[in-house]
């Protein structure tokens, strides 16, 4: 049976979402995205460079018809900034599926959940399909779901930290209580971190820095693809029970 990943009524085969920031150039970005097998890519909204009009554009390397662009609000610290950014993103080409992220602190890049919830509420009313970057707090995650977001994206650890899932219990609690997809966002450092997120039952993983800052980003992108598939299959397969002591794998009868 096919294991489809659905967000806001749209189906995807890949459960890996990748960011497009921090790469050496757009060629590397495109190669890494393709190697990752991701169908959804996050993008940022910024001013067009007026003085250098010959600069290459992301859209020339990653066709928005082939990849689902997920505009984000990275760098926004208030609800007003985030709303302005996503309304502009929608105007670029009708993007309704968006990633909301309102930060609270420049050092930790932790989300400001008060501003995040406030923004999510307004965006949902404006008919956006909102995927939300949030803390790994079950109560606040529930609040976001109640407000009507289409995916909950708790952090594994601070953005760009690469230290993996810091609170597995909370991620499990959030997944258990949520009717919408739960996607671990931020803090994944290497393939095993992505696998763990999937083994915990998460619906997907979002990775950017772990791929872009690897010595070989394209190879790491491919590794993340397999890591997410492996973790998902392990979760579906339902792992064995843990034992305190050893248990032989070969029959104990008829020993010579």
């Amino acid at each position: 049976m096919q294991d489809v990943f659905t967000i806001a009524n749209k189906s995807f085969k890949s459960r890996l979402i990748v960011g497009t920031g921090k790469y050496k150039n757009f060629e590397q970005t495109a190669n890494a995205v393709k190697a990752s097998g991701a169908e959804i890519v996050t993008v940022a909204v910024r001013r067009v460079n007026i003085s250098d009009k010959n600069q290459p554009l992301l859209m020339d390397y990653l066709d928005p018809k082939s990849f689902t662009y997920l505009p984000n609000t990275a760098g926004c610290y208030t609800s007003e900034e985030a709303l302005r950014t996503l309304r502009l993103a929608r105007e670029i080409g009708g993007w309704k599926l968006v990633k909301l992220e309102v930060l609270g602190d420049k050092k930790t890049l932790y989300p400001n959940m008060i501003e995040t919830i406030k923004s999510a509420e307004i965006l949902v009313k404006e008919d956006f399909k909102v995927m939300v970057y949030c803390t790994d707090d079950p109560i606040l995650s529930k609040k976001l779901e109640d407000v009507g977001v289409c995916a909950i994206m708790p952090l594994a650890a601070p953005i760009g930290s690469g230290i993996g899932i810091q609170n597995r219990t909370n991620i499990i609690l959030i997944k258990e209580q949520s009717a919408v997809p739960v996607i671990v966002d931020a803090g994944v450092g290497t393939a095993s971190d992505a696998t763990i997120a999937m083994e915990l039952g998460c619906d997907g993983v979002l990775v950017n820095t772990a791929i872009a800052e690897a010595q070989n980003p394209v190879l790491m992108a491919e590794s993340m693809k397999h890591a997410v598939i492996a973790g998902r299959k392990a979760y579906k397969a339902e792992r064995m029970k843990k034992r305190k002591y050893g248990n032989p794998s070969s029959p104990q009868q008829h020993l010579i």
Partner: protein
Amino acid sequence: MQMNNLNVAKIQLNGNPYEISAETNLNQLLDRLKIKKNKVAIEVNGKIVEKNKYPKVFLNKDDKVEIVHFIGGG
């Protein structure tokens, strides 16, 4: 040679001063900048302008114009 001041309007474009000829609409501004309409969004004085209204929105002196697009981001 300096252009006749009556025909020139100074606006703020993406945070920098920019000179346009008077009576420029948003379609003309994009043409002049060689920017494709379907890749950007435009805000004039803090208000987003829908693409189908570009021909009808003429820029005036001191208008604050923001043209944004998608770049790589996480």
